[in-house]
């Protein structure tokens, strides 16, 4: 399945000029808990999805109050730096949408 099957929000945004932060919010607590327990999202997985080094992933945080998981990583280019393509970092979420995985609900 894909995240779009079980998440209502998949978004990206700067967290300051040097970090990019991604949020996945699941459609309900049950799905979130299933996803969390399955251990599907790790630093290694996030690095693989984005084709970046594991060391560049700052954190993967499961945030129970919002049934959400947050991934934060170092931007390849600082906001507004030479060659930057997305000053606000608001359009970097699609690799998460395209990611395919197995989960028994």
């Amino acid at each position, binding site marked *: 399945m894909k995240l779009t099957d079980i998440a209502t929000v998949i978004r990206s945004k700067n967290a*300051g000029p*040097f970090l990019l*932060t991604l*949020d996945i919010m699941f459609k309900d607590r049950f799905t979130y808990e299933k996803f969390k327990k399955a251990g599907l999202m790790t630093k290694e997985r996030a690095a693989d999805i984005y084709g970046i080094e594991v060391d560049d992933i700052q954190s993967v945080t499961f945030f129970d109050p919002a049934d959400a998981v947050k991934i*934060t990583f170092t931007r390849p280019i600082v906001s507004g730096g030479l060659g930057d393509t997305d*000053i*606000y970092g608001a359009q970097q979420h699609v690799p998460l949408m395209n990611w395919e995985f197995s989960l028994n609900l």
Partner: protein
Amino acid sequence: MPAQKRFKILSPTAILGYGFPLNSFARGMEERPDLIAVDGGSTDPGPYYLGSGKSFTSKEGVKRDLAIIIEAGLKAGIPVAVGTAGGSGAAPHLQWCADIVREIAQEKKISFKLGIIPGDVEKRTVKKALAQNRIKPLDHTDLLTETAINESTHIVAQMGIEPFITAHEQGCEVILAGRAYDPAPFAALAVLMGYRKGLALHMGKILECAAIAATPGSGSDCVLGVVEQDSFVLKALSPERKFTRLSVAAHSLYEKSDPYHLHGPDGHIDLTQCRFTELEEGMVRVSGSQFIPSEKTYIKLEGACPAGFRTISIAGIRDPVLIDKIDSVLKDVIQKIQPFFPGLNMNDRLQIRQYGACGVMGVLEQEKQKGHELGLVIEALGDTQEEADALCSLYRSTLLHYGYEGRVATAGNLAFPFSPSDLSAGRVYHFSIYHLMEIDAEELFPLRCETVRGN
């Protein structure tokens, strides 16, 4: 124990100048708030605004918002606090915003006590801290250098709640602050009144985005926050919006790297014990937010420095033969024009973005498929505007007529939507300082009070 049971804060809009519906604002004023606070800026729009001293919001928008807010505040006898005035909160931004306030006073014939709190840090102060090893990078690893300090046009520090508290103690009716920790203008007066810092700051963190934390979210609508003894309540002020447990909890994630620990100047807000409870009428109660003071006070420094001049040209490609070879063609053309600019490294001077391929995600793009058409944005950087113009012009004309292998369409490679095809975009700035400075005995954020008189 706070002197009163509850303290109400009206947040009119997510950024001063973004506007708000008058009906929502009127509903907010009917709640008899104790404070109107608003965030005036952000680093989100990139380094240009801090570097150039300009605002990313329009004068018209800021003036409209401020006129309504100040008039309502004075009428109700409650203070108005603005953080990060003018978009980036450096001296020219603060000046710009203060001039708008004075203009409003003149036009509306109102008088009040204005408190101005600059957020600038002198270069010698930063150099001294650097020499004493009191500066460390934030979210990156580049150590600060004397050169970066010297080249930055403005250096600002994010003030916490104390300078606002001083201004409130002095009886300022309108407070304009330079660069401020976003929740500070919201939380300061509540903390002064005896409410818990963790609650006040967490509520400020949500209120500074106004209705973005409600559902449906909006950056241009008013909300109300009510802090009580051991919790706070959020209330939307438009019938089309409400707060839900999820919308508020989700907002803790918004543009923050760590949702459980929100770092500020003298400590962090710990949300690990936070409870979000839905009440009637689209309100949400939040409890359990704790403020954890840090041993040392670290303030965030921000600076931007000039990085040359930019010229851009926009052009489309529809030819499938060229689209197929585009990566190598773009590189070949760079090689072709290199001899005309000896001594310049073309890779630092030319960026060609391919919209329809990897224009949005750049190096993070994994999709190999290109669209049936490509939009190119040619960007040239020069030490002067003339140099940038010349680089862009030569690259554009060389690419237009470049004879690549297998070319069928021999009359021209690019479709230009505009004449002139090249746009001189002016100065470019880069973030040069994004560091934490450990406070020693620096006297920062001096308050200046003046009586603004509208004749």
